[in-house]
Structures are given as structure tokens and as C-alpha cells.
């Protein structure tokens, strides 16, 4: 029964009283207060009337024929459910027993005879206030429940979108083990891995500030950019630049993403690391069990403008059997019953004392579980085992539209000079161009690898004159890359030329690719001989090129090289 219009506090009152004079008197009293009065002469009538009319308040005589007030009160309270319908018992205060019964039957107050109009008015007012309070509580509870339901639905949708975009990439590869919280979306944890066309693996571990949807919102453009750029063959530095720019643009000031980006190159046996704000990762060398700390050297993503953003990576040589371990904040912050955190010390002890490297990952997992006492839900961890499994030809993922479906007869030449060489990586662009040729698509991996190798040789050994002999050990590695960064930033002369020619060949076609550089050249024959050794860390990767391309020929002076890729009809 809704409240009467105008809601000046006028309600419908049910009066159950078996004495006719008393009933009449009380009814008049209540009506004079402005309320609508319904009368019943016994408990049964009272319950029936209540069910039918749903009054807001009940005045109930205790002793009535047919059904007494206590039973009627019990039934009415049951019918009212979670709504508050106050019941004021009409009784004499002298009877303690009756009072107890009234309370147990659900009575909310008492009114004694003779009826005092002032007291009656006051009690009705007070009970009405309580009733309205309860009604408000229920209304708000229902409102909250509805909103909560909406929020949960939205979060489910967000999670579905998130899962599609931040798909696991190549996290399922045999040499990777990882642990990711099912609540990753809401913790702002991101774990992505994908292969470049030439076979290097890019891995991104990210930790957004904040929780919930705001964190997930930043994750999506990051995942998208990571996957598409990796698939197109962009370098870690270029990807970092793009991610930083995107996040700086999208995230409000004060929000950022701590991240570690890895590039694992099993072919060339090197690891590139960029860590901005995450706890140190570890590289465990199979040779001596020694750990190299991969510490955070940069500000997190999304803090600095791009012109101040430092994309330089640390480079480490890799050997087959080495292991790379990355972990999020959540791992170190796992806590025990007394509030202590797992912390870096415990982790380092674990690493030091581990005598079975193959079980290291599991050992860390167990240690965390033991420490916390139950499964923790906030930690992400990843381990990569450097293996010498050859990576089969990776098809280029379709990101974006191709405009020339089948281009079979053209040539193009490019000369990239010093200023361009300093800041532009031509490989993704060239690869994109070559992927317009349908026949070359199945071999995109090999093609990209060869292009990358030729370009790196031309630039590093040719134009910049770096000596690959440096790359014999870890210290030499660091020195080599230090020199590389330095010479590149100082570069003011030199060029690398690409000549691309696509010609038809019967039902198929051929790519003739030539790369020239402005460097001093090298002794081709000697270098080829030296590269027979399988343990050399550096070198010009000439064996690799010879293996992947259909034909390859170096100019005698070493300043130019020509390679060929062929395909048949139906490719």
C-alpha cells in the first residue's frame, strides 16, 4: 500500500481492538491526526485486512477472541517481510508477562489504557520515522545492488576485451614458464611475448599503477602496439618509444607503467634488456651458475616526454642453457601472517641456494606459497630457457591492409645516409614493401633475418667500422655496444644502399637484393673461413645468410653483397 499522496506523513493505520467503544475512541483519535484508519475486531480480521490493504502501522490489542494479538502480530510481521511495519500493542503496563509476549511476537511499542491522545500521537510519529528510515535503507540497498551488478557486468566485458587483445602470444612456447595472476587485469599486470619475423622473442612484463579498469585501459594500446610492431620487425628501442609516447598521451599525470622489455636473440646469442621501474630480473649463466642482475635503470613508461625518454638497452651475451627470470612487484610483496614481505633478500637466497636450475621456477613458486600460506593472487613471473631449438619459419601476422596484392615486376633503390641511419630503422619498412609480393610471404622470416643481418653488417662493421672480434666475452660485448651507441650518435658521413628487384621467373619469380655500404670492406674469403667455427659469438653471420637465401655472393672487397630468393608458381 503506497503512502498517501503528498506524503505529509499521513499513513494508513490498522486498528485491531475487540471492545467496540475502545475501538471507536481510538479510531477517532487516529483519524483526527490525519491518518486513514482501518478497523478489525479480532486477530483474524486484522491479518486479513493487513494482507489486503497493506497499512503502514498497526495498533494491536493483545487479548482478542478468535485469534489473539500475539498470533496476529507474528503473522503480520511475516507478511511484511523485510519492510518495517511497526506494531504498537494496546495493553496495560502492569502486566510484565504480557509485555514479554508482545516483544517476542514482534511488537515495537506499547500504548496503555486509558488512551492519552498526546502519547498516541507521539508514538505514531516516532514509529513512522523508523518505518521511513527502514524503507530508505532497503531502497538504497537495492540501488547499490543494481549498480554493483552493472559494474560486475562491465568488468566482465572489459576482461573479455582485454583477454582478446592481450592474448598470450608465444607464452606457450616450450622454453617459457610463467605465472600470472587470474586477477592480472585488475592488478594492472601485463605479460606479453611474441616473435619477430626473424625469430627473436620480445617479452614485455608491465605493471600499471592503480588497479581495476583504469589500469586495464592503459594495457590495451600497449599490447596492441607491442604485438603489431614486433610482428613487423621493429626493434626494442622503437617499440619502447612508441609505448612511452602512447602512455604519456593516454594516461593522466601520476599514472604510469613500470615495465621490463626483453629481446632474446637465440641466433645471435644476445639479450637486450630495458627495465624501467620493476624489480631486478636475473640472467643465470649456465656456465658458472652466476646471476647477472637486470636492474631498473629507467623511469617507468608514460612519465617522460619522448624527447627526454631513454630507450637504451643493456646488452648481454647468451649461451644455450642460460635462464632469464623476470618478476613483478607482487612477487616481492607477498606477505605472511605477521605482515612481513617476502622481499629481495629471500629471493636472492633462493637463487643462490638453488642447485637444480630446471626447478628454480617451481622452487620460487613453492617458497611464495609456503610464505603466504595460500595461493597469492598478485604476482607475475616469467622464466625463459635459452635453447637451440631452431625456430621454424614464422608466418607474418596480418596487421593492417596490403594494397598491392601481387606485384611481380619492379625494382626500387634506397640510399640511407648518416642523418637517417642515426635515427631510422629501415627494416620494417623494407619488409613491409617486400611483403606486397605474395610469393615472398611464406618466407618472410628468412627474408627478414637476412635483411637484418645484411643491414647490421653494413651499418656496424661497414659504416661504423666496429670490430666484431670484440664480442668474445661479456665484457667485450658491453664494450662493443657502448661503442656502437657512441659512434652512431656521432655519425656524420656514410651510407647504406639497398637495391631491390622483383622479376618474373617462369610461373614464379625472383627477388634480387643487393646491399652496399660506404665502409672499408673486409677480406671476404678469410671471414668465411673463420665463420666455420660454431662457437664464435660475433662475426658477420655469413653462414646464416648463406643458409637462408637461395643464392648469395659477396663482392670481393666486401663492400657489397647480393642475395636471391626464388619462388615457384602457386606460392
Amino acid at each position, binding site marked *: 500500500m503506497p503512502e498517501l499522496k503528498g506524503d505529509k506523513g499521513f499513513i494508513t493505520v490498522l486498528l485491531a481492538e475487540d471492545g*467496540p467503544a*475502545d475501538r*471507536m475512541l481510538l479510531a477517532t483519535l487516529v483519524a483526527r491526526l490525519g491518518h486513514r484508519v482501518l478497523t478489525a475486531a479480532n486477530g483474524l480480521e486484522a491479518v486479513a485486512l493487513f494482507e489486503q490493504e497493506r497499512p503502514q502501522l498497526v495498533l494491536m490489542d493483545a487479548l482478542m477472541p478468535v485469534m489473539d494479538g500475539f498470533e496476529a502480530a507474528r503473522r503480520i510481521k511475516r507478511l511484511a517481510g523485510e519492510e518495517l511495519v511497526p506494531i504498537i500493542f*494496546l495493553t496495560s503496563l502492569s502486566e510484565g508477562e504480557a509485555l514479554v509476549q508482545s516483544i517476542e511476537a514482534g511488537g515495537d511499542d506499547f500504548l496503555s489504557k*486509558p488512551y492519552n491522545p498526546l502519547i498516541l500521537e507521539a508514538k505514531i510519529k516516532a514509529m513512522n520515522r523508523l518505518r521511513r528510515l527502514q524503507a530508505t535503507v532497503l531502497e538504497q540497498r537495492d540501488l547499490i545492488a543494481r549498480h554493483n551488478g552493472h559494474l560486475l557486468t562491465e568488468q566482465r566485458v572489459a576482461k573479455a576485451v582485454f583477454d582478446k587483445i592481450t592474448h598470450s602470444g608465444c607464452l606457450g612456447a616450450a622454453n617459457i614458464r610463467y605465472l600470472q595472476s587470474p586477477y592480472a587485469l585488475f592488478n594492472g599486470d601485463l605479460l606479453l611475448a611474441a616473435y619477430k619475423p626473424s625469430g627473436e622473442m620480445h617479452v614485455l612484463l608491465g605493471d600499471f599503477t592503480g588497479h581495476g579498469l583504469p589500469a586495464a585501459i592503459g594495457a590495451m594500446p600497449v599490447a596492441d602496439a607491442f604485438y603489431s610492431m614486433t610482428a613487423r620487425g621493429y626493434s626494442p628501442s622503437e617499440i619502447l618509444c612508441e609505448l612511452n609516447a602512447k602512455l604519456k598521451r593516454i594516461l593522466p599525470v601520476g599514472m604510469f607503467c613500470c615495465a621490463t622489455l626483453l629481446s632474446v636473440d637465440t641466433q645471435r646469442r644476445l639479450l637486450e634488456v630495458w627495465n624501467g621501474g620493476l624489480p631486478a630480473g636475473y640472467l643465470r649463466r649456465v656456465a658458472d651458475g652466476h646471476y647477472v642482475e637486470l636492474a631498473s635503470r629507467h623511469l617507468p613508461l608514460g612519465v617522460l616526454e619522448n624527447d627526454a625518454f631513454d630507450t637504451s638497452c643493456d646488452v648481454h651475451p647468451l649461451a644455450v642453457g642460460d635462464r632469464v627470470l623476470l618478476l613483478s612487484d607482487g612477487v616481492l610483496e607477498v606477505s605472511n601472517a605477521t605482515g612481513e614481505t617476502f622481499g629481495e633478500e629471500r629471493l636472492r637466497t633462493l637463487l643462490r641456494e638453488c642447485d637444480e636450475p630446471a626447478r628454480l621456477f617451481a622452487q620460487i613458486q613453492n617458497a611464495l606459497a609456503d610464505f603466504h600460506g595460500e595461493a597469492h593472487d598478485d604476482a607475475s613471473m616469467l622464466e625463459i630457457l635459452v635453447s637451440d631449438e631452431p625456430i621454424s619459419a614464422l608466418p607474418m601476422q596480418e596487421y593492417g591492409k596490403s594494397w598491392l596484392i601481387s606485384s611481380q615486376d619492379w625494382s626500387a633503390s634506397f640510399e640511407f645516409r648518416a642523418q637517417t641511419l642515426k635515427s631510422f630503422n629501415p627494416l620494417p619498412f623494407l619488409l613491409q614493401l617486400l611483403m606486397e609480393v605474395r610469393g615472398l610471404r611464406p618466407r618472410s622470416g628468412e627474408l627478414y633475418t637476412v635483411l637484418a643481418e645484411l643491414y647490421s653488417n653494413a651499418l656496424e662493421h661497414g659504416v661504423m667500422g666496429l670490430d666484431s672480434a670484440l664480442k668474445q666475452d661479456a665484457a667485450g660485448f658491453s664494450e662493443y655496444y657502448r661503442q656502437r651507441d657512441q659512434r652512431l650518435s656521432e655519425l656524420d658521413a656514410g651510407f647504406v644502399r639497398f637495391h631491390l628487384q622483383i622479376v618474373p621467373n617462369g610461373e614464379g619469380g625472383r627477388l634480387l637484393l643487393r646491399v652496399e655500404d660506404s665502409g672499408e670492406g673486409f677480406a671476404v674469403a678469410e671471414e668465411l673461413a673463420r665463420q666455420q667455427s660454431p662457437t664464435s659469438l660475433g662475426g658477420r653471420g655469413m653462414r646464416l645468410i648463406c643458409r637462408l637465401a637461395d643464392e648469395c655472393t659477396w663482392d670481393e672487397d666486401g663492400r657489397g653483397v647480393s642475395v636471391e630468393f626464388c619462388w615457384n608458381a602457386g606460392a
Partner: protein
Amino acid sequence: MSEHLDSAILSSLQEIMGEEYPVLLDTFLADSEERVRLLREALGQSDAQALRQAAHSFKGSCSNMGAPLLAGLCRLLEEAGRRGQLDGCEAQLEHLERELAIVRIMFRSERQRFVIGRS
């Protein structure tokens, strides 16, 4: 008005009921006959519980109507019923009937006075 009817309560009843005042009085008087009948019946059947309940109900009504002596007599019968001691109740019931007769007469003249006063 004496101790049979409480004039303060009667004024209050008049004020509350307004035009309906006589109806209230009539209602009470009619109902009180039924109450006494119930008391007689209970006593006749030596039903202490019924006596107690009937006396309790009537007591409330009487006090609402400003008849304190009548209410008091009801209380005595109620007590007796509660204790299960029905000896002596016959006398008390007769006393009650006599008091009711007095109250009835006084209410009728009240009624008369009210109607005249209104016209």
C-alpha cells in the same frame, strides 16, 4: 460527578469525539451488557481463564470511558480469575452489576445534557 465517573476523562472524550460523543456512550453501554453476560457465563461454568480474560477486556474499556470504580471491580475479578479463586466472585459480580447500573444512569444523563447543550 463523584467517584463513579471521572469528569476530566469525560471532557477529553467529548473533545475528541465531538458530534459522535453520544454514539460512543451508546456503544459502551450496549457493549457493557454483553461483557457482563460473558462474566456471568464464565462464573457459571467456573471457568477461571474465561473470567480473567473477560474481566481484563472490560476493565480496559471502563478505564477508557472514565469509570474508575467499575474498572477497579473488573480488576478484582481479573485477579480472582488469575489466581483461580472463584469463591466470592458471585458477590463481586453482583457489586459490579450494581455499579454498572449507576454508571449507566449517569451516562444517560450525560448524553441528554450533551444533546440539549448542542441544540
